[in-house]
């Protein structure tokens, strides 16, 4: 910029006025805020929410208690025991303990599962009141949504 231009810019505070214009424009622009909890932004399909065990179309659990997830996990969240019933074709889990406070939501367990039994859900509302809510047993692992919230709030007497 020429020296005269720079001088005029300084005297007439043009850089100041330009800055003020930017914020004024922003003042009138549409805001991108999502007002939680009235509005909830839906997470992406691959979102790593809480883990959940899935069943197949007949309602049978997909988990075959192979403990691949337990071996893959880097933070020792899992404690699994399986048993093969008489006449059954595959092993089923009898104990499936999972600790929410240890999980780092990395997804290694989901990747190694041979039957895609354990998967991420899109549930991110994971608040609870007592420590008991952080310890998941086999029936809790199948829960979703509202049921899950009940479990997490196990410490309080909130009526559902």
């Amino acid at each position, binding site marked *: 910029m020429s020296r005269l231009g720079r001088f005029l810019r300084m005297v007439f505070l043009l850089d100041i006025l330009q800055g003020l214009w930017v914020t004024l424009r922003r003042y009138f622009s549409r805001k991108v805020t999502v007002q939680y909890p009235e509005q909830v932004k839906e997470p992406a399909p691959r*979102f790593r929410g809480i883990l959940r065990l899935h069943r197949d179309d007949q309602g049978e659990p997909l988990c075959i208690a192979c403990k691949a997830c337990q071996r893959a996990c880097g933070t020792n969240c899992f404690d699994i025991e399986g048993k093969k019933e008489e006449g059954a074709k595959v092993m089923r889990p009898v104990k499936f303990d999972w600790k929410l406070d240890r999980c780092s939501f990395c997804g290694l367990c989901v990747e190694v599962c041979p039957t895609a039994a354990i998967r991420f859900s899109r549930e991110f509302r994971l608040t609870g009141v007592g420590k008991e809510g952080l310890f998941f047993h086999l029936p809790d692992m199948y829960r979703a949504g509202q049921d899950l919230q009940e479990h997490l709030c196990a410490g309080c007497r909130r009526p559902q």
Partner: protein
Amino acid sequence: MALREIDLNMGPQHPSTHGVLRLKLAVDNEVVLRVVPVIGYLHRGMEKLWENLTYTQVVPLTDRLDYIAALSNNLGYVLAVEKLAGIEVPRRARYIRIVLAELQRLASHLAGLGFMANDIGAMSVLLYGFEAREGVLDIFEEYCGARLTVHGIRIGGVPHDLDGALVARIRMVIDGIPKRLAEIRTLLDENRIWKGRTVGVGVIGAGDAVDYGLTGPSLRASGVPWDIRKDIPYSSYDEFDFDVPLGRNGDVYDRYFIRLEEITQSIRIVRQALDGLPAGEISAKVPRVLKVPPGEVFHTIEAPKGVLGFYVKSNGTDKPERVKMKSPSFINLQSLEHMCKGNLFSDVVGILGSLDIVLGEIDK
């Protein structure tokens, strides 16, 4: 007249130290004489922890080092392990990694610039930067499921493919970034108050910068053209055409300007990568339980904060024997004293912001 030294403590809890950093300052009236950083408040024992985990289990934990640019840490570690294990990554995976890494660089610089501007008083720039960053974080959420602790790279390749919808989305996001950058530039670039706070402040010369081991945008702002992506290319960076912006004076203004320019260059790289995405596999065949042959390797990448290096030593089992991480912020922090000497102590926050450190990296 004798110097009257006052000891000031910028404690671990402070709105402007980027994390829990303690700075012991010695000032004479207003001029800074000594700066002694005290670190370790965020030490989690990562390197020791990694010795008990398998190579695959370490990858998600590297996210937690530089938490602003998690993917770069993933990439650094994974590249080191792949070099040691001799795993050849398919070309498509390499391109996808570059797309993700450059998007992460963009996001990291926006956050870093925002924090620096906020410390100097321009609060709005922080929020504009973060709003721009949201687009990138949304892409990460679509791609691998998490926004901050991404775990978006696996040993051998990448976990998911970039399909057409995701590519279109990435293009849409990076098309919108230059407008945001223009806003930030209008607010700050020529602003007399900003220039008064940043030009000539926190100067470090090229020779001193190299002596202190400064790397990354801060080094390039002093005029030293060292960028690992150009000088020791990794993961197909040599196939891309991009510029490495260089500064002249090595002051806070240059460090701010370089980061802005790097965002533009990152957009350029992402566009090239998306245009030329080769077909192929997204991951090499890696055994479930990865046993790495004995050996040691030190591999560096250009993380957004500087040169990130991983030294991995293996003894043939599936767990590394020793992983040592050379974090850029740790080394960059050394030069803080040199930069702050002679400046007023109001400048310390600005200089610290321009160095762009992350305590997660420093303390591991």
